[in-house]
């Protein structure tokens, strides 16, 4: 029998606990609200507009629905005010690199929530933002002359600044990157930068990201494998204030991929297919793909894997050197000054 209502027949097992449809959906909504409330307690933020990062995939669709419902909900008592003054959808259009007609589907899904829809395309990374130079011109301008700068210039900036439309420049940039791991990395960097820009342009101080627990665990493994321990807590935590003017929250962090999928299914929420470079590819295509294959398979044998990794991550905090470090021009996270010295002594 369902563990909560003890009346209906169970329809799903989550981490060895049985739920019926209704109780599961209700429990998910409660869990989402609790996540926002807990974040509130840890980092109190003034009530403001929130940007809901929406890729169209399963988890961000669930995030969108839960947020929209939360804002609309009738409430009383101490909880009378919705957590945000208003919510805005933020989408990054990737069709330049992944052609297809997902964009219409995505727009339609978002339209069901009646929230304002703002979007930027990937190639807009080359369009100057008000007050800030285009992403990659910054790279060129800020680096001291020398072989390292010349290498980066040749690999990243040169193809990107070649003439042509922004879309062509984007394609040239990605064509110049050698490995799928690097391409996925660059895609993440650009998407994050554009999302933050969307938030600022829409007047939002808080951004909701749809990283599910499974995604967080996979990300942690991939970041570790790439040597990014210094920014690991910042890129996976439930609340992140690293970007001073924007607070990033991950309220879906307690939902495993399975829970997301069942929630969408039973609330009749459709989502779009959001591919990346290695989607459906062999496991060794990139570090990200490998990490995903590893965690998903391990979680099948040991169902506590994903929650344990998330819990472990939550107990880590950034080092003082990390918090004081300068931000990397490309990805915006803390840059380690002496990493090269360390590496040279050992290789």
């Amino acid at each position, binding site marked *: 029998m369902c563990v909560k209502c003890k009346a209906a027949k169970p329809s799903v097992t989550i981490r060895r606990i049985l739920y019926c449809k209704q109780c599961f959906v209700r429990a998910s909504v409660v869990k989402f609200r609790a996540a926002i409330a807990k974040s509130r307690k840890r980092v109190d933020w003034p009530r403001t507009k929130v940007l809901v990062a929406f890729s169209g995939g399963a988890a961000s669709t669930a995030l969108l629905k839960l947020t929209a419902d939360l804002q609309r909900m009738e409430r009383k008592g101490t909880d009378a005010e919705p957590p945000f003054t208003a919510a805005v959808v933020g989408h990054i259009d990737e069709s330049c690199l992944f052609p297809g007609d997902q964009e219409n589907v995505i727009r339609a899904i978002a339209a069901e929530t009646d929230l304002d829809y703002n979007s930027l395309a990937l190639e807009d990374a080359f369009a100057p933002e008000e007050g800030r130079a285009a992403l990659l011109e910054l790279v060129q301008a800020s680096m001291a002359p020398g072989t390292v700068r010349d290498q980066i210039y040749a690999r990243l900036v040169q193809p990107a600044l070649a003439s042509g439309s922004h879309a062509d420049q984007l394609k040239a940039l990605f064509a110049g990157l050698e490995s799928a791991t690097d391409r996925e990395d660059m895609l993440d960097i650009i998407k994050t930068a554009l999302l933050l820009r969307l938030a600022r342009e829409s007047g939002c101080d808080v951004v909701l990201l749809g990283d599910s627990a499974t995604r967080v665990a996979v990300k942690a493994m991939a970041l570790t494998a790439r*040597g990014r321990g210094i920014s690991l807590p910042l890129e996976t935590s439930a609340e992140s204030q690293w970007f001073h003017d924007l607070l990033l929250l991950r309220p879906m962090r307690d939902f495993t991929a399975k829970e997301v999928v069942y929630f969408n299914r039973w609330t009749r929420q459709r989502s779009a297919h959001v591919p990346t470079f290695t989607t459906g590819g062999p496991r*060794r295509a990139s570090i990200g793909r490998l990490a995903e294959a590893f965690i998903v398979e391990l979680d099948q044998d040991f169902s506590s894997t994903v929650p344990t990794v998330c819990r472990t991550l939550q107990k*880590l905090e950034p080092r003082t050197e990390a918090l004081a470090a300068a931000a990397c021009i490309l990805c915006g996270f803390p840059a380690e000054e002496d990493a090269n010295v360390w590496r040279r*002594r*050992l290789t």
Partner: protein
Amino acid sequence: MPRQCDICQTARAIIRRPKTGQRICKECFFYVFETEVHHTIVDNRLFSRGDRIGIGASGGKDSTVLAYVMKTLNERYDYGLNLFLLSIDEGISGYRDDSLETVKRNQQQYELPLKIVSYEQLYGWSMDAIVETVGRKNNCTFCGVFRRQALDRGALMLDLDHIVTGHNADDIAETILMNVLRGDIPRLGRCTEISTTGDSYIGRSKPFKYAYEKEIVMYAYLKRLDYFSTECTYSPNAYRGYARQFLKDLEAVRPSAIIDIIHAGEAMKVADSVQLPSLTSCQRCGYISSNAVCKACTLLEGLERGIPKLGISKAARHAEVAATDAPTIRSGKAVEPVHFERLREKALEIRRQRLEGAPLPTAPADSESCCGSSCACTGDACS
């Protein structure tokens, strides 16, 4: 046109270095491998002049190469260290007896004094006996816990200042991944430390922390070093196997991944708000412990009383509490471990004698048993 070595540009390149992908000649490979270990030792200030160092020697590739490289660097850069081989006999027939023969050959080949201590001698239980009682699951726990203590006991018997083990980069990377996957926060905070020191136990270091396992094998092969390379007969489906497979896949995608994982692990910091276990001394044997009774004593007690899961599963502790009234049948196999205070006293005595110049052989007369005057174990523990 044969390719020239990437480093010296003179000799012909015969190997591709796993760590960096460079194509280099044999001599350059030896040089970079040894120099990186030298940098690791020097940058982390692992030793002081005059230190007596015990090399944990199993006869396997890591410890054999470690012994060879330590000796080479000690001479080349004049560290001024006194090196000893310290070997543990867990009592696994068909595996350990063979690898111990390798260690004895190493003793001859590298001209380093050797001491062997066995579980049978220290605790009264060999691994064969343990596996018979416990089964094939969880037996690695026994071996690991006992070995840790056995190394410290052996080190005190020789009055050593420091122990070095052959843990390589692959081991450390796997451990980091495992600790994240299993949520072992205390270990995660410690596992990237190259050196662990403390007042109440012998410091240990891992000079091979940044050395790739593939390179250690390559080094041993090219130098024609003598080592033993079979897996432990009780080696099971340990959880580590999953992390190991992931690591091997990562290495195939990007060879620098192993070092990158260690770099990431070094940057991980446990939040200050997290409670970590405090350290105290075991009530029974005086070894360092986070509980009243150390893990080794707990496991030993479980073996004695026929509750082999004591110290492993929580259910066993309840069974123990329930059974305290009924008279338990003890197996009588266990030897009361010598208390660490006694071992430390003996070690200090040896040290005093040594500093006063009393002539002592630096190695036990017979490497099989330790009943020589240079040894700090008490007569009754030497059986």
